[in-house]
């Protein structure tokens, strides 16, 4: 995916913060100052003071001469760092990856975030408005690289949204300082008459390096997107992953098992501290010849039991082809779930479905025979017997309705009802006898019919009239007649189940 970055520049970070705390300062010229070599030096100036010609780095005494009414406020050492961190955490609302750009900005990785606001324009507008509401004057820019976004947010004049691949064109008219260069490099560039990035951007690289040092090339490449730049997010996205690089490539099963055991133990103990269990784990083995071998296991319950997971993996290890050897193992919990803490008991009187041992038994069976082999049923709200069940999705799932108890259902239900020949009095009586698989059964006893309508709102079909019958040997069957009696179309009789 194309990376997109937003650079936010707080133009008057500390003064805006002060005005927020002391609103009366908003109308006055004031500056922040810090002790430096025995005198007060101005570190930041308010908008009004700036208009009167005060700038950061001035000695406070000079400023007082220039603007007699100026108010000098004591600065604090780590004020801007603290403020930026706070703002960074606050801007997690815009993107999960936010980083502090010391001393007066934030960098946000907004790849794939802007569309949630309906596009980059509304995204940036919302950002500006929200900061404004907080009382901060900001400038923002969005671009493919951090370097370009930073440059445009500080020095850009035309537009804040730099489209994909437009970095070079957008930074051409900007001054060299937009490249985040050290002061002496910018100074030298100015001295040589290179007032715009464009005037030296296309120069030979070796020449630039010799004259201005590596820093210039690095910053230029980063702005153009030729070199990747890494930011340190405030809230690191920590995946449930463990890595184990090997000193020597591993080719044996024993070696793989040892590595897996160690990884499982590390991952499980880390996840245990966070109360999270593994539902699906993937082991990636990086081979020396750049091939990646992957195996995965799934569990029925969120599991933190290393030895159980190892047992599941054991069946899969034989699928790995180590080739020339595996040099890196990466174990990742792809699917996780919160584990309910269970109090340890000395003994359990009642066995139950929620126990870990049972879940592990089912995992073992599922690993061998597939997940489809293990079924648990819950009642469904249908009268047709074949539709009256639904599969439970987990061991914890409880029925949402009670099991129907009033209706008699046979213990054996045929997958498909089978047609039988009957002799039956019309219109609505149970058959007198029926022939199933060549054998004639004479009906001795029968219960009244139970009519089950086809569900016309789902599918068309005829109703069924079910009868419980008992033959001369005392065997009990579940028969039904499909539809009404008709002169033309004779109704079909079927056997659908066996009673106990």
């Amino acid at each position: 995916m194309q990376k997109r970055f937003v650079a936010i520049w707080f133009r008057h970070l500390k003064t805006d913060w002060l005005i927020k705390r002391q609103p009366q300062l908003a109308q006055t010229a004031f500056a922040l100052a810090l002790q430096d070599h025995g005198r007060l030096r101005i570190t930041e100036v308010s908008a009004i003071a700036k208009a009167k010609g005060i700038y950061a780095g001035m000695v406070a005494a000079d400023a007082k001469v220039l603007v007699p009414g100026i108010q000098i406020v004591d600065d604090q050492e780590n004020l801007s760092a603290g403020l930026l961190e706070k703002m960074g955490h606050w801007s997690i609302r815009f993107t999960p990856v936010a980083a502090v750009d010391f001393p007066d900005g934030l960098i946000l990785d907004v790849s794939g975030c802007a569309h949630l606001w309906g596009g980059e324009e509304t995204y940036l507008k919302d950002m500006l408005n929200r900061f404004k509401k907080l009382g901060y004057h900001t400038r923002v820019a969005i671009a493919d690289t951090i370097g370009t976004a930073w440059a445009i947010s500080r020095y850009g004049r035309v537009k804040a949204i730099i489209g994909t691949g437009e970095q070079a064109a957008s930074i051409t008219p900007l001054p060299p300082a937009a490249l985040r260069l050290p002061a002496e490099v910018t100074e030298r560039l100015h001295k040589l008459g290179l007032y715009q990035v464009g005037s030296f951007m296309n120069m030979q690289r070796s020449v630039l390096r010799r004259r201005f040092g590596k820093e210039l090339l690095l910053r230029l490449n980063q702005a153009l997107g030729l070199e990747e730049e890494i930011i340190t997010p405030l809230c690191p996205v920590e995946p449930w992953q463990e890595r184990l690089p090997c000193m020597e490539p591993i080719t044996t099963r024993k070696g793989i098992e040892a590595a897996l055991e160690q990884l499982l133990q590390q991952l499980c103990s880390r996840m245990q501290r966070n109360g999270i269990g593994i539902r699906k784990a993937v082991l990636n083995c990086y081979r020396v010849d750049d091939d990646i071998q992957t195996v995965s296991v799934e569990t029925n319950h969120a599991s933190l039991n290393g030895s159980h997971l190892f047992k599941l993996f054991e069946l899969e290890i034989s699928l790995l082809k180590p080739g020339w050897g595996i040099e890196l193992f990466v174990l990742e919990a792809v699917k996780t779930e919160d584990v309910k803490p269970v109090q340890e008991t000395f003994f359990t009187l009642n066995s139950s479905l929620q126990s870990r041992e049972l879940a592990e038994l089912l995992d073992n069976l599922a690993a061998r025979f597939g997940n489809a082999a293990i079924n648990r049923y819950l009642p469904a709200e249908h009268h047709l017997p074949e539709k009256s069940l639904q599969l439970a999705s987990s061991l914890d799932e409880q029925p949402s309705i009670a099991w129907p108890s009033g209706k008699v259902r046979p213990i054996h239900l045929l997958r498909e009802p089978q047609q039988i020949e009957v002799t039956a009095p019309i219109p609505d009586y149970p058959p007198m006898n029926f022939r199933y698989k060549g054998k004639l059964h004479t009906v001795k006893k029968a219960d009244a019919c139970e009519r089950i309508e086809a569900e016309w709102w789902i599918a068309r079909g005829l109703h069924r009239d079910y009868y419980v019958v008992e033959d001369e040997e005392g065997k009990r069957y579940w028969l039904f007649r499909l539809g009404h009696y008709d002169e033309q179309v004779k109704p079909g009789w079927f056997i659908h189940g066996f009673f106990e």
Partner: protein
Amino acid sequence: MKSINLDIINRVKKDILTLQGFKTLPADNTVRIGIPTIEANFPNAVFPTGCMHEFISQTIEDAAATNAFVAALSGRLMQFGGACAWISATRTLFPSALKRFGLEPHQIIFIDLQKEKEVLFAMEEALKCNRLTTVIAEVKDVDFKMSRRFQLATEKSRVTGFILRHQPRTANTIACVSRWRISSIASEPQAGMPGVGFPRWNVALQKVRNGIPGNWQIEWAGNSFADVTKQDSKIISMPLLKVG
């Protein structure tokens, strides 16, 4: 002197039963299946749990009767809660019907496999899991060696296992505590009522280790067993068979 010897012999007998895997807990702590006439034929007059029981059926109707009887037995064993695994490669059991036999259908885990061999493997694994109360497996044939493994697993985990053999090639002896044959017989509706009555079975306990085989007619009367054996067909006097 003689009475002392008799005491010792009784105690040793009980010890032997314990070693053979029979429960000898105090009477109030054991699960009753609710058919005193059958239970009387078992050692200690307690339905043996934590061991294997074998059921043989030939016709599809008898298989249904067997399933129902076993479901009812498991329901009695699980009356204080628990879980049950039903392992089969040819399952036609309809879960909703289990409700009538005192089993909560959602408390049962159905393991539906492809081959008989897989059923045997799953059965052994399940019998080792002590969180299950009963394990029911539908298989055609089991050899003695495999059944011995089942028996050893149940003795350790105290799970009760039921092997339902439908049309086995040979009724070979396997390491089980008992062998049963269940077949359905004509029901008797309540006096003066039309229709089909409560399910009724002919329960033949063909072999039982340290017990007395017998034959009974049992009815499942809604939520409990009822012995409806006619007096003339009561316990057939048979010499003690050495089985298992």
